[in-house]
């Protein structure tokens, strides 16, 4: 479907909504096309290779203050009419939503999204070539991972007069190399497939795997740590979902208190949907233009992410962070950035530790208490004991139970790396750009032996 066809389809759906629900009805529609190619490898061969195409129409109709949302991937006339009628019927059975904030008013976008023609048209052969480079660079070690390329083109329109469109591409590679008892990982996300560099990633993963061989067990306790960017991405994810999200803030479930120095002064966090790294559309699911949102400035909690509903409840404006399902989950930034410091690489930061841990990756992190953001999880893909600035030994998997805000509290951040990199979180469409962090304490509650 072309951009013009999507705009025409969106206008047609809005006309249909008004014709079925009456001229006073409000409606918003998103028409999006996504093509995703994903090439997975394991045991050093490609074992899954998929391409899927989706054409999705999402409609929300508001009738006399009540609303309902429907979606379909059928664009023929009969199906569209049935979809609109279904939405209107569903809206009419609800009580009016007194807190409905109205539809997004007309507002211009600050950009159209980051797009790369070559990535948009990437072939399975090109993705397989990145895999081949990764496998070859691992120099005989067993490897596993994926290479992905995506393209999304979308139009949003509503009856309040807002019509915006955008298109984005994304690419990601994420792989491990393995030796008995240890894995090493390397990953990278980008707007462009040709920036992934399979060979470089394969070399890093292999080096880490070899450095992790023959790990030792460590007892539970509090350890100084250097966390590499993937760990930092995990921390930021939980802070944003449970802390800086307008929904839990409004309900008194968040730890965040805007204006207070809740974090170490070395910490800066923002949402960067419009920067050159972003793989996000330039507007949110409510059609609100996206913008940079400074969340933590020099350790001070500076802002809360809002969609139109949470913003109205808080007497604020939407920050353009509405997400699919936001009525339940709230507003969550999906392009977080953590400001780099001058600490060099994770190895440079580790060199300043008398005794502590260097951690590559977290795994299966789950929240124990949303208010304090206490998380339990495990290390994965490499942990090393550092003594007097040197690697003393690779370490077996460790379990931790740790309050994330507490780990970043004033005085707790001992160093910020200058090694910020784009970490794909599950896919190329959510990239976290973060450096390594050197933290004063991390609560290890168990090891591989229990």
């Amino acid at each position, binding site marked *: 479907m072309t951009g013009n066809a999507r705009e025409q389809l969106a206008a047609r759906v809005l006309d249909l909504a008004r014709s079925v629900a009456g001229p006073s009805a409000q409606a918003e529609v998103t028409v999006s096309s996504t093509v995703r190619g994903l090439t997975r490898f394991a045991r050093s061969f490609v074992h899954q290779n998929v391409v899927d195409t989706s054409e999705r129409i999402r409609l929300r109709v508001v009738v006399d203050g009540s609303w309902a949302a429907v979606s379909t991937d059928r664009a023929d006339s009969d199906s569209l009419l049935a979809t609109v009628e279904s939405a209107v019927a569903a809206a009419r059975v609800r009580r009016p939503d007194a807190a409905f904030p109205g539809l997004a008013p007309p507002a211009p976008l600050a950009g159209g999204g980051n797009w790369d023609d070559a990535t948009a048209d990437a072939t399975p052969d090109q993705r397989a070539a990145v895999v081949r480079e990764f496998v070859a660079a691992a120099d005989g070690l067993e490897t596993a*991972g994926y290479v992905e390329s995506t393209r999304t083109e979308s139009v949003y329109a509503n009856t309040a007069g807002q019509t915006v469109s955008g298109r984005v591409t994304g690419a990601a590679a994420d792989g491990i190399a393995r030796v008995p008892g240890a894995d090493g990982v390397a990953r990278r996300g980008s707007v462009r497939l040709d920036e992934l560099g399979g060979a470089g990633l394969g070399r890093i993963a292999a080096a880490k795997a070899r450095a992790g061989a023959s790990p030792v067990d460590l007892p539970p306790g509090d350890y100084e740590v250097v966390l590499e960017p993937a760990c930092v991405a995990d921390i930021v994810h939980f802070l944003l979902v449970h802390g800086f999200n307008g929904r839990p803030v409004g309900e008194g479930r968040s730890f965040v208190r805007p204006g207070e120095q809740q974090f170490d002064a070395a910490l800066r966090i923002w949402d960067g949907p419009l920067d050159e790294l972003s793989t996000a559309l330039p507007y949110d699911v409510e059609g609100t233009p996206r913008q940079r949102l400074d969340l933590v400035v020099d350790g001070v909690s500076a802002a809360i992410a809002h969609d139109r509903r949470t913003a109205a409840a808080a007497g604020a404006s939407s920050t353009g962070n509405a997400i699919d399902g936001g009525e339940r989950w709230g507003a969550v930034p999906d392009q977080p950035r953590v400001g780099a410091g001058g600490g060099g690489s994770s190895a440079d930061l580790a060199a300043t530790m008398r005794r502590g841990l260097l951690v590559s990756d977290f795994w299966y992190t789950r929240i124990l208490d949303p208010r304090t953001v206490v998380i339990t999880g495990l290390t994965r893909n490499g942990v090393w004991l550092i003594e007097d600035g040197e690697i003393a030994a690779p370490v077996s998997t460790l379990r931790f139970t740790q309050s994330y805000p507490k780990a970043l509290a004033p005085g707790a951040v001992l160093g910020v790396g200058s090694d910020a990199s784009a970490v794909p979180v599950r896919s190329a469409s959510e990239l976290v750009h973060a450096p390594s962090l050197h933290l004063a304490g991390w609560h290890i509650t168990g090891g591989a032996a229990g």
Partner: protein
Amino acid sequence: MFEVAEAAVEAALAAGARYADARGMYQRNESMAARNGDVEDLAQRESVGVGVRALVGSSWGFVAVPDPTDAEARRAGERAAAVARASAQVPGPDVTLVPIEVRQDSWASPCEEDPLSVPLTEKGDLVAGVTATMRAAGASLAEASYQVWDTTKWFVSSEGSRIDQRVRECGAAMSATAIGEGETQRRSYPGIRGQYGTRGWELVRELDLPAHAARIAEEAQALLTAPECPAGETTLILGSEQMALQIHESVGHATELDRILGWEAAYAGTSWLDLAKLGQLRFGSDLMTITADATLPGALGSFGYDDEGTPAAPQDIVRDGIWTGVLSGRDSASVAGLSYGGMVRADGWARLPMVRMTNVGLLPGDSSLAEMVAATEDGILMDTNRSWSIDDRRLNFQFGCEVGWEIRNGRRGRMLRNPTYTGISPRFWGSMDMIGNRSEWTFWGTPNCGKGQPSQVGHTGHPSVPARFQGVRVGVRG
């Protein structure tokens, strides 16, 4: 839809595939969520499309397209073969498929009351009403929801299978959250994820949400001032809902053959289980018998045929404490030298079928929860899952529950907040010394099992009973 799927398969064969299959799917989904007395979200979704899988040489390719015409389906079949050829740039060992009986058949899950035909007003009144009741009973935050899925599949393979299935699933959930000064406490009913099955709306009616709404709100409030779960080693009794989670995470995922073979090593992870020890390794105590059985009527992991056209059949996973079986598909079983697949599914037409739990559950024993409590001098009873974390080999776990109760001298005592326990899987299962009986056997449904890349959400079933474990470390916290 059969014709479209057949066109895709024919085109894949013509383009060089030595095997191909295609699934046409029409899916309808409806969900409603209420909060604090009002419906806050009502969503309906329909989706139709075809996914075609082609095997060229030793490599797979998969292409999915929405609502295709015959010509578009043919093009998808050709592209699937081309994708498979691209895979051959980094080739693997030969792929063979364990043989299955070719079937032409129809199957449908049991459904007494079509969930999509129940009036929206009635469903809305239910979820909004229970949240109002919870608020009135003191909940700071009261939430309730239901979900319905109605899926029709048309499966065609180049071996001659031609199978259609209609699976209707639904269920509901509610929770009450109490917000204190320093933390939040939550109670859910019937479980953290609710309860779901391959049944009609009669399942939701049987849950009787209104009868439990006030109780969970009061319990959430009481938890705020309950003493913290003590730290140490003790006798642990788990309710059947938490047991379902324990089975899912530490047995179900651990016995997925794709993990054991290393095919999921980079993401979902691997398994501590070594195929060379299948049939000999002690997984747990003699009381532990786990089956994977997609034939259980109404359980969430039930179907007539999996997404490779293999008919549903029960499979022993652990028998009397010995590891005896795996969850497998046709290609993974062949690699492992096993004779059975039948546990491969995709969450939609746009996704590649992969090894999935069916109904992985614990067969009942001869005790009851009351007998376990009575037989325990000093211990803790925990129920309703709250948090779950397990390592990538499915060996080291730490799980939290919403509520615990102290057990002293054979009696259930005061409520405990923030109960957690941790362990190493075979050691933990080896300590199981009492399990519930058939009257306590519940087919819990998990509607949100994430696995795969791109991520797929699986629906799995977990028949379970309460059980007792010895020498378990509890009260781990940050």
